[in-house]
């Protein structure tokens, strides 16, 4: 006997993501799904954003790590709220893991940044209920990464090129990186920053402020 099923494998994740989105919409929170390789500077970029926005906006960071809570401890020092999710075996956050963390959110936030597990492959597949994906690409990784990891760079609305302070020492050409990113998605917004010295964050912060305003 043959049964036609015709059901998407990710259907349950998509349904849960939709519910998460409803939850985030209650307080009109702007939710970013931040994805990048281990060591690309996700936490440091978040730290810089927090420093510039925390006086005017209520911010929450949800930290996804396979193990430990080093990043959320680091971010707690900036005075904002954090929630730690340990994925144990999984290499990405999915909508289920986020939905389990939602009951811990008991006050309204303007901005929720979700730091995904350090990985350029798997997190790109899973919608967690975010407004958009932010990819972080650091200069020592090479300007060819958008070619090698097309899905993430196709789906990310924003790409942050981090560690621009290292440009004199690495084989990374901003021009090539931009070309490779835009070949995957011509509408991508690209920002160049150095989380180490704070350069380039003003443009990114202005963009985020506009996105936050759209939510209200």
């Amino acid at each position, binding site marked *: 006997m043959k049964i036609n*099923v015709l059901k*998407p494998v*990710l259907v349950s994740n998509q349904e849960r993501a939709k519910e998460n989105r409803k939850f985030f919409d209650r307080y009109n929170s702007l939710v970013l799904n931040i994805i990048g390789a281990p060591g690309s500077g996700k936490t440091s970029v978040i730290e810089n954003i927090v420093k510039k926005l925390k006086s005017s906006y209520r911010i929450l960071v949800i930290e996804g790590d396979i193990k430990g809570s080093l990043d959320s401890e680091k971010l707690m020092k900036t005075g904002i709220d954090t929630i730690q999710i340990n994925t144990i075996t999984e290499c990405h956050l999915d909508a289920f893991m986020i939905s389990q963390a939602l009951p811990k959110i008991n006050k309204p936030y303007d901005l929720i940044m979700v730091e995904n597990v350090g990985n350029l492959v*798997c997190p790109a*597949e899973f919608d967690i209920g975010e407004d958009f994906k932010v990819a972080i690409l650091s200069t020592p990784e090479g300007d060819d990464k958008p070619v090698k990891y097309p899905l993430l760079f*196709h789906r990310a609305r924003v790409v942050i090129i981090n560690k621009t302070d290292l440009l004199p020492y690495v084989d990374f050409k901003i021009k090539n990186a931009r070309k490779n990113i835009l070949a995957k998605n011509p509408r991508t917004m690209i920002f160049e920053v150095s989380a180490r010295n704070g350069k380039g964050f003003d443009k990114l912060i202005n963009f985020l402020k506009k996105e936050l305003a759209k939510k209200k």
Partner: protein
Amino acid sequence: MHEYSITKSIVELCHQEARKHKIGQVKLIRIRLGRFTGFSPAAINFYFDYLKRGTRCENARIEFFEIPIRIKCPACNFTGEIVEPVFICPECGKPDIEIISGREFYVESIEGE
């Protein structure tokens, strides 16, 4: 590595469908997989052999059918297949194209008795 949870979803989905249609033993699962997804059939098969135990899929195997990446260019109306996910129209070179297929990932059918 993310194929573990995905394979679990496949097993659960097929097990439930089999129960609904009173299939005791699933023999074959047909999956359609777009080329523009990050899932590996080899990794799915690897986890499947472990995760299918004790379910109605215990004696099943999976057949994968690839779906090519097809695009449409709103500027020149070109419609066709591309091999690499580079989103530039091969006809007119405009970068703003629509993806028609290649992102699919679904269980097409199950067979069994």
